[in-house]
């Protein structure tokens, strides 16, 4: 039964993806994957974590159809590997789940082949699969169906017409090889495997930091002194930098793009260096027994204040980036800066929690990777091209029309609709119209597997017959 399911799934895989670009097919593939995984791992799907991951995967599949963006496709692939990894072992860290998911998908067949006891399998195989029975079960009904179809064809013109419309031209050796690839993929994910010893080691690792046997008050006292001096000095330095940054912020001239760009970029560079060093130093001092040293209060408070100062630094960069965006519009890089700021803020909060609740490095990695995955999924739900175009044309004081025209075709309709409301040259208007016409032509030539929400909603534009 399992083999039949895999064969059906692999045939669907070929029908969906062979010689097609991404669209509705990836969403449908995701749903097929979920259904197959649920059927053959029904016991495991009672776990809430697994259900949550299946939901995230289904959601990412919907957004592939809705947004049709590269980011949505990347998020869908990440969610696919996470789900497969969660089926293989649901209690591990998300990065181990990714690893298990990728390993299962690309090499599950080889792994199972390695693990199978050959002698035992030969006996089981014969017992489990009765080839003659399966040949009869598939072959005899197929032969009789073909004979009767040929007979009925001559008896009824409508039936004859319908049968003649069935076209198997798409089947060729390449198509068959593609189906084999689909079979390989589905047979791999149906029986997820785990990477050892990475999985068992991850399961054994808790989030709590343990006091070690080498606890020495004398040593810890010296370490605390060093940490307090260093962090206090860095606190003063950062506070001074923030004051000067605040002063410079008030003197920024918003009319000069180069000046604003310089401010944001230098700020980001400072931020990257500062945050990495900050987290590194904090992790170094709070890596072990210093967490359990009774007189570590001052060091902890200084570390917390340094984290707070870094948060202020982040807010300042966010303000600068916001001024930049209001004056010169949104771009992917400027949005990227905002996302980076959010991730950095989360990184600082988790570092704060690590020190406060005496957690280990594994806790930090686990939480941060989980949050990064959620941020990726959330970002994939937004049609950034449309947001950038609408914001720049309607709200920004100044914008780069070349940048907007060179974005992907997902903003073609918005640009076309707003082309008369904005002051641009005739040359640029022509470019917008060409982009729009090309986009509409592409949409009208899409096969059903390549459909997206945009194609469905603009069906009246794509199909002139419906006017």
């Amino acid at each position: 039964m399992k083999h039949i399911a895999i064969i059906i799934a692999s045939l669907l895989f070929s029908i969906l993806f062979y010689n097609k670009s991404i669209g509705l097919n990836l969403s449908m593939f995701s749903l097929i994957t979920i259904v197959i995984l649920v059927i053959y791992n029904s016991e495991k799907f009672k776990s809430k974590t697994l259900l949550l991951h299946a939901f995230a995967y289904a959601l990412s599949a919907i957004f592939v159809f809705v947004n049709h963006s590269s980011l949505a496709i990347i998020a869908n692939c990440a969610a696919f590997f996470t789900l497969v990894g969660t089926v293989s072992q649901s209690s591990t860290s998300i990065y181990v789940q990714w690893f298990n998911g990728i390993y299962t998908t690309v090499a599950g067949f080889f792994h199972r082949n390695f693990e199978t006891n050959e002698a035992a399998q030969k006996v089981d195989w014969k017992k489990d699969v009765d080839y003659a029975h399966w040949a009869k079960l598939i072959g005899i009904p197929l032969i009789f169906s073909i004979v009767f179809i040929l007979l009925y064809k001559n008896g009824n013109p409508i039936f004859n017409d319908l049968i003649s419309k069935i076209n198997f031209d798409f089947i060729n050796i390449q198509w068959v090889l593609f189906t084999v690839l689909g079979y390989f993929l589905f047979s791999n994910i149906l029986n997820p495997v785990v990477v050892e010893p990475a999985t068992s080691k991850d399961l054994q690792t808790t989030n709590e930091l343990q006091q070690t046997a080498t606890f020495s008050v004398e040593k810890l006292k010296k370490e605390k002194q060093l940490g307090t001096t260093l962090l206090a000095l860095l606190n003063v330095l950062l506070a001074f930098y923030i004051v000067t940054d605040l002063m410079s912020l008030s003197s920024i001239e918003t009319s000069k793009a180069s000046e604003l760009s310089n401010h944001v970029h230098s700020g980001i560079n400072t931020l990257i260096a500062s945050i990495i060093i900050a987290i590194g130093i904090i992790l170094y001092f709070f890596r072990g027994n210093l967490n359990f040293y009774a007189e570590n209060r001052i060091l902890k408070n200084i570390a917390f204040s340094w984290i707070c100062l870094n948060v202020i630094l982040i807010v300042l960069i966010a303000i600068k980036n916001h001024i930049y965006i209001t004056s010169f519009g949104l771009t992917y890089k400027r949005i990227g800066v905002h996302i980076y700021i959010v991730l950095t803020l989360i990184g600082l909060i988790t570092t704060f929690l690590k020190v406060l609740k005496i957690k280990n490095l594994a806790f930090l990695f686990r939480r941060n990777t989980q949050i990064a995955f959620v941020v990726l999924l959330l970002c994939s739900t937004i049609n950034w091209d449309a947001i950038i175009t609408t914001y720049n044309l309607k709200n920004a004081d100044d914008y780069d029309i070349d940048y907007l025209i060179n974005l992907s075709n997902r903003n073609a309709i918005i640009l076309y609709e707003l082309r008369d409301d904005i002051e641009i040259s005739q040359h640029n208007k022509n470019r917008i119209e060409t982009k729009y016409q090309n986009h509409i032509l592409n949409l009208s030539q899409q096969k059903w597997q390549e459909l997206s929400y945009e194609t469905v909603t603009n069906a009246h534009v794509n199909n002139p017959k419906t006017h």
Partner: protein
Amino acid sequence: MNVPENLAKSSLLALVIFWTIISSVHFDQNVLLYVMLSFIPVCISVTIVILGTICPFYWSAKGNDVTNKQVFKLCFPYYTCIAFGLCSYGIVVSNYDLHFSAFCLSAFITTNQSWLWFAKEKTRIDDRI
């Protein structure tokens, strides 16, 4: 470790996969001649890849009382994930060029199978266990 046997089997496997993919797109009647001629470069590539990237793992384990199965279990997942990443990257960068894609696919499958063949060989440590 029976390296020559592994190299021979792997070369044959790589050759079959490579030409199956190529022939699926454009079948040439003179293909048999090309297949025979291409056995030499395929053999050289397979030898370089297997001796350079797979055998060192098994050789380094020889002196440490580790079985081939343990080496496979420990190193193969990382190897295959990296190989998959590199092959996928190569295929995308080559703009899905048929010959390069066939080369990458055959390299990926052959190296994985070669790992498996080495892992299934019985070692002296296996006998002791």
